[in-house]
């Protein structure tokens, strides 16, 4: 694997008042990796991603994305990342096409480019039958694909996906992960958070987060081996405690 660093943090910290939401996180994510962040609700995953995307100011520590400092150069970073927020946040009252064209224009793509990217993405992400539907009428799984498509319109080298599959059925989730695999094949880096344990198995590397701290990091097979468990779910329970996992699946 190419060892070029896409995302780097050193003791990155964020406090809300006295509460420490992200506590001294140090990671390196390499180009072409799917890097998973595993943690229960409230572990601090979203806060970490928001700092990396320039949406929140860190309270301490360092970080860089695509080689740019997250405190100083957040506007440079924004050109080079795609972001899918935890909540679906495209315009519900625009059609699929309108959303794509809107974001294309916002990213400064030329009309021709937008049309070309639209075509590529639509077939890649599988949106063909939905193009003229109002976004609010789409099934959740399709919405998430559309959100991924919009986040990749400008062909960013790094994607931040915050719980991109929450709330959809296992089949749709598998489809979505296949999409992520195809995407990293093209040399992109994917930083993804989840609270589904089975999804962690698909990542190249995962880090387990609890109460703002990273308590374990490594490839899924390494983690299972060192903790002598057969699944990541068991590793997680051993580390964090069973009551914190999401047992819906």
């Amino acid at each position, binding site marked *: 694997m190419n060892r070029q660093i896409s995302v780097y943090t050193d003791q990155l910290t964020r406090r809300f008042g006295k509460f420490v939401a992200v506590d001294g996180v140090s990671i390196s994510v390499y180009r072409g990796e799917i890097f998973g962040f595993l943690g229960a609700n409230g572990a601090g995953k979203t806060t970490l991603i928001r700092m990396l995307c320039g949406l929140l100011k860190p309270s301490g520590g360092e970080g860089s994305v695509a080689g740019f400092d997250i405190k100083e150069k957040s506007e440079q970073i924004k050109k080079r990342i795609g972001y899918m927020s935890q909540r679906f*946040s495209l*315009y519900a009252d625009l059609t699929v096409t309108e959303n794509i064209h809107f974001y294309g224009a*916002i990213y400064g793509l030329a009309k021709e480019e937008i049309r070309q990217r639209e075509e590529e993405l639509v077939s890649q992400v599988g949106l063909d039958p939905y193009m003229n539907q109002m976004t609010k009428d789409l099934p959740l799984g399709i919405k998430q694909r559309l959100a991924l498509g919009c986040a990749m319109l400008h062909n960013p080298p790094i994607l931040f996906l915050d719980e991109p599959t929450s709330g959809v059925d296992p089949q749709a989730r598998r489809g979505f992960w296949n999409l992520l695999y195809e995407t990293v094949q093209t040399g992109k880096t994917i930083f993804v958070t989840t609270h589904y344990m089975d999804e962690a198995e698909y990542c190249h590397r995962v880090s387990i987060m609890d109460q703002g701290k990273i308590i374990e990091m490594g490839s899924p097979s390494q983690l299972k081996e060192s903790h002598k468990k057969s699944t990541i779910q068991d590793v997680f329970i051993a580390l964090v405690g069973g009551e914190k996992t999401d047992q819906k699946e």
Partner: protein
Amino acid sequence: MQQILAMIRKEFKQIFRDIPMMAIIFIVPIIQLFVLAFAITVDVKQIKLLISDFDDSRASREIIRAFGNTDRFKIVGYTHDLNCVRGNFQEWKAQMALIIPPDFSKKMARNLHPQVQISIDGVDGNTAGVALGYAQGILSQFGTEFLIQPQYRSRLKDVHLVTMVERMWYNPDLSSEQYMVPGIAVVLLTILPMMLSAMSLVREKEIGTLEQLMVTPLKKHQLLLGKLIPFLILSFIELALLIAIAMPVFNISMNGSFFLLAVLAFFYLFTTLGLGIFISTVTQTQQQAMFFAWFIMVFMILMSGFFIPIENMPQLLQKLTYLNPMRYFMYIMRDIFQKGSSIRFLYKDAVPMTIYGLLIFSFSVIKFQKRVG
């Protein structure tokens, strides 16, 4: 540029697809116009008058007829019981009482300073003052006519009667609509842009689309221009609509320049759009934003001279109104409509208004951050 256009196009699509929003933008202001223009009438007409005639003479009946002949007064009853006057005032059945004492005509015949008593409900001070003026007019007219009757002519030798010819400038009919409608336009240009911009930004914050926009390279000024230009355009459409409806319906005259009006309205919109942005930076939900906007609005409107003329306020409040940008635009709007004032007369209000606008706008733009927390 492309980004700003995309924002504007998106904003208009969203507005036109949102039926309740369309209603709020286009129907509510028109209803407001009619309600406000009809309800807040400052014309003093049909003052409810109670008569207490203890004299019951030709002279006293003539006075009563004079009061009955004008639509300023409406005689609501006759009584010889003075306690009844108080009762009628308390039950809002009468606003004014005319009491003619028993010796009135006798004193008049002997030239002994005949007196009548006017009692008036002073709760609504404005109306009371105007009503009193009307009553004085009627009584002095009566006195004059009485004196020039042939049998009293002899006494007139040394009396020079001064008659007053009134001419009310700028608003000859004392029409309240002529005064209120420009005020309503100011209120509209305050509420609409502030509400729309605040609500639209906070709504995007609430549903998360603003966060999505903030991770794009879209610049802050592009985002805000894209948001505000549609509301600027809508505000002007509304203003034009309001004037177009009000002028024929209420028979309003516009004596000034529409161009000047538009230019000054543009500068005023910096204030109200700026306040909208400001509200969006300090609130998290549409409800909070709505509450905050109402709060600001009530203060601005009360202190603008819209309902209560600033000249009638206590000194301290009068001074405080100088802090209210709406105050200046209220003067400007009324002056342009009624007096046709040119910028030569309006700059005293236009300059502070514009300074406020630019200050509020820049402060809000600086406060607006491309971050979530």
